[in-house]
């Protein structure tokens, strides 16, 4: 089993202007994610879990450390130093990110959101139509919502759409930032099902969860974080 992701010595702090205020995001983080592996991270709010994910996705620029990623297109590259162009390409083709909040362009329907994610992958339109409907149906989004702008959705519906969009691409690496935080039990089970399916299809997953019960049965390993450091490996 090869490694898809290898984070070593990752440091991120935030310098706040004006003045010498510095917030610590994460310190000296080391972690390895194997191909097809599902690793969960847990810890209290503010312990730096999201910081790690955002550094990997390059929403944050780390101060030091390496994030080696094994890309299908570019081979092994350091996400902390790769050019913006490459990161943009990877975001389109290989790395997915699901946050707690759906942030989509206004005035685009749920169906179009999922379809455009798939069209990036080069499928043709009839195929995409069918796959989109299947995916939306799986998440139990009512078909009356498919052609509606997501701004009008409830929190849970938005979240399910968000996950559907990320899964539509079948990314090589999927980063999950508490995607199930506000979901009901039934929806969680649905998400879990699809995550397992993605995993068997070869996607590697790194996710943040508060819900230990959810992680049970899907995560291969669980890491714990506190005060910006990974404190325990393999809780399970």
């Amino acid at each position, binding site marked *: 089993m090869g490694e898809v992701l290898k984070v070593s010595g990752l440091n991120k702090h*935030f310098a706040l202007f004006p003045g010498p205020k510095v917030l610590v995001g994460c310190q000296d983080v080391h972690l390895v994610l194997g191909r097809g592996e599902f690793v969960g991270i847990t810890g209290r709010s503010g312990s730096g879990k999201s910081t790690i994910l*955002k550094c990997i996705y390059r*929403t*944050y*620029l780390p101060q030091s450390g390496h994030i080696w990623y094994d890309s299908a297109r570019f081979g092994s590259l350091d996400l902390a130093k790769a050019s*913006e162009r*490459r990161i*943009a390409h990877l975001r389109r083709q290989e790395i997915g990110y699901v946050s707690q909040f759906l942030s989509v*362009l*206004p005035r685009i329907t749920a169906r179009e959101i999922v379809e455009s994610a798939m069209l990036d992958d080069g499928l043709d339109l009839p195929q995409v139509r069918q796959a989109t409907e299947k995916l939306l149906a799986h998440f139990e989004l009512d078909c009356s919502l498919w052609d509606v702008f997501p701004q009008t959705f409830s929190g849970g519906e938005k979240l399910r759409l968000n996950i559907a969009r990320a899964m539509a691409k079948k990314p090589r690496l999927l980063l999950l930032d508490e995607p199930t935080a506000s979901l009901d039990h039934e929806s969680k089970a649905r998400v879990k099902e699809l995550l397992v399916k993605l995993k068997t299809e070869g996607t590697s997953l790194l996710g943040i969860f508060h819900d230990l019960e959810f992680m049970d049965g899907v995560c291969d390993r669980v890491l714990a974080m506190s005060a910006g450091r990974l404190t325990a490996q393999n809780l399970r």
Partner: protein
Amino acid sequence: METNEGAVLSLQNFRKQFGSGCEKCADLDERHLQRNYCPNCRTTYACADLSLDLYGGEILGVVGESGSGKSTLLRCLYFDEEASSGEAFLQGYKSGQVNIFTETGQQKRYIRNYHLGMVYQNPYMGLRMSFSSIGNIAEKLIAAGGRSVDAMTGRAASLLHKVDIPPYRFLETPATFSGGMQQRVQIAKALSNNPPILLLDEITTGLDLSVQAKVLDLIKGIQRELRISMLVVSHDLAVIRMLAERTIVMLDGKIVEQGLTDQVLEDPQHPYTQKLVQSLL
């Protein structure tokens, strides 16, 4: 190192000053300016040493406060103003081997007519208000070598249709249009010669929200369908967040920060960018 390959527009060490400069501000490192202004000789250094690359099919956002040199940058690229120094290369023009700033006036007109489209903040800059809408577009088409009236009318009508101008108003002058409609005619005009690069200067400023939404959807649609590269200047961060994949932050004529848009907005590295992001409603 990534090469410049694929950059449809490459700008290097571009400077633009208004005024002659004096001994007090001649030395680039030792100059004492108030922001970008020399109080001694009243020279404004609007753009100081800008370098940037614009790639195929990409929307590059440029943000910064008023007077930071954003519009000057676009106006120089469109040859409305002459660059003081620096080099710019277009991939589609002489294989990107020739600095377009030093070309002859005739060649500059050619570049403007065949390679660039510009949408100004103020429609009065980009349109002839007393000519019909369709005539405005024909003007650009004639400049780009169009001679068949039928072909030009057809092209102009299809573009006006694309930007949602009703057919019965095609022959009316933009002076009789609302601000949002004028802006859309301007976009149609800028698109008429199929430019690989579109320069957009504060195109939604002053438009009400629903009209702004219409213009933004139009821009996004154009990018998706036609894969045109765009340089989008705006001080509205929400517009930039919606449109641009990468963003440049300018302050006093210099680039103080650049990166992926979400990175610039969520993890700003420069004090000015932090201030800007924190000011977001």
